[in-house]
């Protein structure tokens, strides 16, 4: 099943609703980059509110996607990381250090506007 990517003005919205397997994650990577290319979006918000488990591969793919999106000129904000997921990521040593994060979608969009406005 593919992950839907929604377009909102010059931003792309992605809400991941179920646990990703490796295949879906890679598919998502391709889809998102393609979509950025098609719409020339400036910003991307990935919402992880419904995800309460993440493994190192998915985390790596997410990191890669963010890096790739940056190369294509789109800023990425990750929102709604659950406490348990945050702990797992930190314990795996994945700090996502250069990634913008926000508490929820609303704050994420705000942050993105701020970043893009500057």
């Amino acid at each position, binding site marked *: 099943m593919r992950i839907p990517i929604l377009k909102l003005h010059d931003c792309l919205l992605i809400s991941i609703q179920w646990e990703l397997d490796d295949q879906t994650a890679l598919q998502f990577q391709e889809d998102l980059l393609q979509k950025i290319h098609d719409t020339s979006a400036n910003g991307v918000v990935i919402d992880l509110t419904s995800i309460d488990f993440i493994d190192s591969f998915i985390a790596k793919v997410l990191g890669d996607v963010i890096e790739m999106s940056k190369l294509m000129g789109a800023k990425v904000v990750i929102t709604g990381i659950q406490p348990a997921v945050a702990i797992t990521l*930190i314990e795996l040593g994945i700090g996502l250090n250069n990634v913008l994060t926000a*508490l*929820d979608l609303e704050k994420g969009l705000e942050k993105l506007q701020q970043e893009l406005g500057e």
Partner: protein
Amino acid sequence: MTLNYIRSNRQAIFEEWVQRLKEQSDETVSNVILDQNFSTTSTELINLAILKISGSTEEYTTRLEDFSDKIVRLGWPLRFVVNTLDVFGDLVYEGMEKDGLVDSKNQVKVMHDINHWMKAMISEIINDYTSTWERTISNQKMALQELSAPLIPVFDGITVMPLVGTIDTDRAKQIMENLLQGAVKHRSEVVLIDITGVPVVDTMVAHHIIQAAGAVRLIGATCMIVGIRSEIAQTIVSLGIDLSRVITKNTLKSGVEAALEITNCKIVPLEVKK
């Protein structure tokens, strides 16, 4: 036979027993003996022994539990309780010997019986004693855990977690969980960790704090470490710990000011009416 002997000579045994305990006692034990509760409690102990020997198990069990609880509360050392029982056994045997109740034929049997009772009783008392201890310790541990990581919302979007005392791995885990869950629940934009009350910051504590800060950033809030005293700053630098990713302030006050700035708020004095 032994039972009858104890019953009939109860008072004498008791007096002799206290006498002997006093003779061989050191300071802690004499404090116990001087305690006014001593005579009632030790009478209880003898009654218990009689109950045990006469074999009424049910009553004995409940009474023994009460008794163990009581001595733990009174703070009698376990060593002393075990010792008193030993002395009691010795006394009974010696008394019976003196009264000519022991001859070469039943000597072994009497000795064996007394040992048997005493052993059973001592092991039961030790059991009860330790389980009471364990209970106390686990209660204290729980109380400590409840106290260990409170998260206090102070303004809209600003929460403070004051840390007091040493941080070990268990506690660090709990701190992290409380911190993240609280930050999500209160929708915090800035979380301040106040380490004024943490006496020592070594590499491990610093590691935990850095991890917590990283996790807070992941959920979309900013983490700030406040209350860094001069000696802590010195240790952090000399240990080569890199805190450059985290905002640090020396007091909670300056931390709150910085947090207000981040959330675009400001505290202004009211205009005084004239």
